[in-house]
């Protein structure tokens, strides 16, 4: 490893950091006396330019990376599915920055944008990380940014409260995670995911390994807001300023799921290291069912709790939080179910197409999380506009929205129906791909039952999404004064809705793009 390689591998992160510093310097020096609007516009545009540069770097990098000293294993990988997640992170970050243009919750725009960019850099790191230390550093970079963003509405007590809760919960989870990492290092003598997998496969799993795994799952489960590590989410979604909440709900989710995907591809999937000899397979075969079982339990619990708790919410922010928990459950299902289920039945069949189905379910997970992030940003954008006009995020604030602002109501309709998984919107294909991948990977009864549960709960979710839409379209309006939205905000929201429709009508566009990154 030399500095040239380091620079090359971390080019996207570097671009973001440079942009963050530029924003800070400009905002605090040249633009000190400028009007708030101009400062917001400059900061957001610079941030978007940074994202653009980083995106260019990501797409240019190709499959390479930074090697772990002395081995052929990656410390930090680029290309492949990491590039897909990174590109998604950058695009979604740029969208949340665009939504900032109309926001009024802070005067410290330079700091806000800089923190967003640094958090996004953390997200890029963990999407490509293959080493416990890099993972932890990236995760903390991301998390610390999120805590600050949540607290950014300084005049709002709710914001501060939410940030403190989030911080305490996050700190505790990070402690668990680090504790788990230290066990892994102790068990294997390495911090590299692949090395750890080999070491544990050689010795066989011990109870300590299980404890370490649970600790890691607790840390990562916190990031993706999976039950029972979800308790922070409703409060945070409710208290954070809307652009920050949109960032937490989308970018942070993409990065965290990319990390979970890395972990599961390295540890859950036998033979993923490229040397699928039978001893390895046996070694992992004995460890994995328990690991995946935990993920399945968490997935089922998230789907149940998220969807059922969302039914009784009256705050749209909390509703989105619980729906996010439910979506996390679906995605975890895709991450947990791997071709090993087939392996019981036909060893040869499995070894022949081990990479095929697993890559497929990874694709489906990426497809889901990217489109979900896009849709959620739009949902938060609409909610933000309504909240500022009415002063409330209650469902009743949406009464008569189609009369007060028909475009906004139409965007909401498209996004919520997509979240519920109605064809031909993109949310339908996300669910379809994911469930098809799960069923394709395993002939087992348990995954089948879980998919059936997920489909049933998707139908349940339609109820609470329609509760909001019913207020926007059907129920009589209390107040019919028009709601005005900033033209940029409106353009972004309409663009997101159009993308949701377009990607839904041509599902192979995004599928093909993700597939083109297959390692």
């Amino acid at each position, binding site marked *: 490893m030399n500095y040239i390689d380091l620079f090359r591998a971390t080019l996207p992160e570097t671009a973001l950091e440079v942009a963050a510093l530029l924003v800070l310097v400009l905002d605090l020096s040249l633009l000190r006396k400028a009007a708030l609007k101009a400062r917001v516009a400059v900061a957001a545009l610079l941030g978007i330019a940074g994202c653009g540069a980083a995106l260019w770097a990501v797409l240019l990098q190709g499959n390479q990376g930074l090697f772990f000293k002395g081995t052929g294993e990656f410390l930090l990988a680029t290309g492949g599915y990491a590039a897909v997640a990174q590109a998604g992170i950058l695009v979604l970050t740029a969208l949340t920055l665009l939504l900032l243009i109309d926001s009024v919750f802070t005067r410290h725009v330079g700091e806000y944008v800089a923190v967003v960019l640094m958090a996004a850099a953390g997200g890029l790191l963990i999407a490509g990380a293959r080493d416990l230390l890099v993972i932890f550093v990236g995760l903390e970079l991301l998390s610390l940014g999120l805590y600050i963003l949540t607290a950014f509405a300084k005049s709002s007590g709710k914001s501060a409260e939410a940030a403190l809760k989030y911080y305490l919960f996050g700190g505790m989870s990070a402690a*668990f995670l680090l504790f788990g990492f230290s066990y892994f290092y102790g068990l294997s003598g390495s911090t590299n995911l692949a090395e750890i997998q080999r070491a544990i496969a050689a010795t066989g799993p011990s109870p300590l390994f299980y*404890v370490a795994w*649970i600790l890691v799952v607790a840390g990562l489960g916190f990031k993706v807001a999976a039950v029972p590590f979800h308790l922070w989410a409703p409060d945070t979604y409710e208290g954070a300023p809307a652009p920050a909440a949109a960032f937490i709900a989308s970018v942070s989710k993409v990065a965290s799921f990319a990390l979970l995907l890395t972990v599961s591809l390295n540890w859950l999937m036998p033979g993923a290291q490229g040397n699928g000899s039978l001893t390895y397979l046996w070694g992992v075969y004995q460890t994995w069912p*328990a690991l995946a079982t935990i993920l399945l339990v968490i997935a089922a619990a998230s789907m149940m709790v998220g969807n059922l708790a969302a039914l009784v919410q009256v705050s749209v922010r909390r509703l989105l939080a619980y729906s996010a928990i439910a979506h996390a459950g679906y995605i975890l299902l895709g991450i947990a179910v791997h071709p090993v289920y087939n392996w019981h039945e036909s060893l040869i069949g499995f070894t022949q197409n081990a990479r095929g189905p697993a890559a*497929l379910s990874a694709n489906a997970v990426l497809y889901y999380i990217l489109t979900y992030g896009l849709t959620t940003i739009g949902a938060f954008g609409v909610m933000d506009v309504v909240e500022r006009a009415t002063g409330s995020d209650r469902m009743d604030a949406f009464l008569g929205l189609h009369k007060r602002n028909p475009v906004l109501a139409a965007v909401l309709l498209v996004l919520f129906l997509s979240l519920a998984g109605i064809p031909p919107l993109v949310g339908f294909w996300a669910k*379809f*791909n994911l469930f098809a991948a799960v069923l394709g990977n395993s002939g087992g009864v348990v995954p089948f039952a879980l998919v059936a549960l997920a489909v049933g709960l998707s139908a349940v979710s339609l109820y609470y999404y329609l509760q909001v839409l019913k207020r926007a379209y059907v129920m009589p309006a209390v107040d019919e004064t028009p709601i005005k939205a900033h033209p940029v905000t409106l353009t972004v929201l309409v663009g997101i809705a159009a993308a949701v429709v377009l990607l839904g009508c041509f599902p192979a566009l995004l599928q093909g793009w993700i597939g083109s990154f297959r390692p």
Partner: protein
Amino acid sequence: MQETISFTPQLAASPIAEILWLIPAVPIVASGAIALLKQPKRRTAATLAIGSLSFSLLLALVAFVHVVGEWAHGGGVRETVNFTWIQVGSSHVDLGWVLDPLSAVMLVMVAFVGLLIFIYSTGYMEHDENFTRFFCFLSLFAGAMLGVVISNSLLLLFMCWELVGLTSYLLIGFWYHKPAAAAAAKKAFMTTRVGDVFFLLGIVWFFAQTGTLLFYNHGAGSLEPVALAALLAQPAALGLTAAGAIGLLIFAGAAGKSGQFPLHVWLPDAMEGPTPVSALIHAATMVAAGVYLIARVYPLMQAGALTGGTTTALTVVTWVGAFTAVFAALIAVAQNDIKRILAYSTVSQLGYMMAGLGMGGVAVGMFHLITHAFFKALLFLGAGSVIHGCHEEQDVRRMGGLRSDMPLTFVTYAIGMLALCGFPLFFSGFWSKDGILEAAQHWSVAKTPFYMLVFGALLTAFYMTRQVGYVFFGYWRGHKAAHESPAVMTVPLAILAFFAMALGLIGTPAWPWFRAFLDGHALAFQMSGFAEPGLIALMGTSTAVVFLGLGLGWWLYGGKAPEPEQPDVLEKAAPLPWVWLRNRLYVDELYGVTVIAFYAWWARVADWLDRRVWGGAVTGVAWAFRGWAQLNRFLDTNWVDGGFDKGCEELATGGGLLARVQSGRVQTYLRLLAVAVVALVAILIWSSRA
């Protein structure tokens, strides 16, 4: 039977083929834009619709010229652009579009006739308050129809096909406040649905057998030799191969759309729509989509035929077509509504096209399709002009003598009528109908279709003369004096009239440009084309038949049409057949007492089942629960009354506990986090031991 068409496969699509998708996309986008317009924005709506279709026409012409140019350099062109639409794992569904002579010719025809009718509509619909909505639907229709034409995938074709059906429904029922229009729209939608169900079955079967729905895909398409050979090897029921069975299923869809017997009943009723709609959708383009579909999947229909032979599917197409041709022409004789006569004539002519496809191949059927599109659109627009001029009167018995009141309409209408009758040499209908008759004469299976079609030609000349006699000759029998239509309506008539005559030039035996173009052959001008054995005799026969029909019609109706209240001349001569024909041979009534009666009965049965059986079961369960509840209440009041109060307390505490979980207190959250970790570790260690 012609020999198999050979096309050189094109590996790289030309630039014009790459952007072919714009041709349907632009009118569809325009339609969406018009949908957003407010009602009074009439001019913008018309401009958008006409502008978008002009753009499509321009592109279509460029594509056509490109194809002609390539053909002139030898060989046919077939350029396809395909893309993956849905991908699930390793299986995928592809869509695409194709540019070949067939689609190029059809594109130009649809866009050109459509544009003329759009322009005409601005005059015809001038006083309608829903002018913008009309152009929204019309534009959507044009886009969808162009989509049908360029589809290189049965699935994409089916989507556009359904979209076309939808707009047809919307436009037939455009004046939905008229009960007849609303009923006609429903009837059209549901009757074509019968055919479409079979069509969809055919598509699914086709996909299951070949694994692709692309027509052409560099050798891997479903209409290419590999897939067809596999289909032929696959036996289906009743001695059919899979190819034959799928072909028949697809033909059922085509029959529904193209009004072939026994699914023709919707088309005459569809005349309740505005006349430009009848001209565009129910005469020139949409109803021809079925014929086009058969032409498009012709390799499938033809699969397995030896040289000079035919296949079951094509035989069925021929018989259905020939029967429909005569059947509808007979009914047309006894109709009095100017548009209904034309509607039955359309059904009859569609039968000719089907028969032409079945016996003579793609070029024969398609040539009649193209010429018919022009002269039938002309006739409908002429009829619209007449109706407009006669103050919305549609009964031919209440018209008369219009040749002096509406001279331009009369001249153009007469040209269209002569073209439809197949008047020799100077009219396109003569050449295209002759092509079909010639193919019928040489058909190896039977000679009956030939005689049927000749008889149909006689009837055609007769009923058209009757109509023209009623409308344009004699004396005015209406109420208010008729007037000529504005130029925006008559100019399209004149243009269409020109093509109704001129198009014949490209399909004469001496210079069979159209056939050579579609088949990708070289072309030369040779008078010896007429010297084929029997050809001159055939032309003589058909000429004689046409003159016989014209003469009979003129003899009975020329200039001496009866008063509206008096019975028709033929009715006096043969009352019983007249009543039968007048009542459309009672096909509607037959359906009423069979299919519809069956459905009504079935609905009653289902209703009865619902109320008595299922409802009874539900009620029974409810009663059982009630009984159970009564028992419980008895036990409750007597035994566990005290326990109930206790239970209430417990529940209240439990609810409080749940609420406390999400209390907002961080200490609780963190405690729960620790508990969760411990619990999960316990689960994990327990499960791994098992």
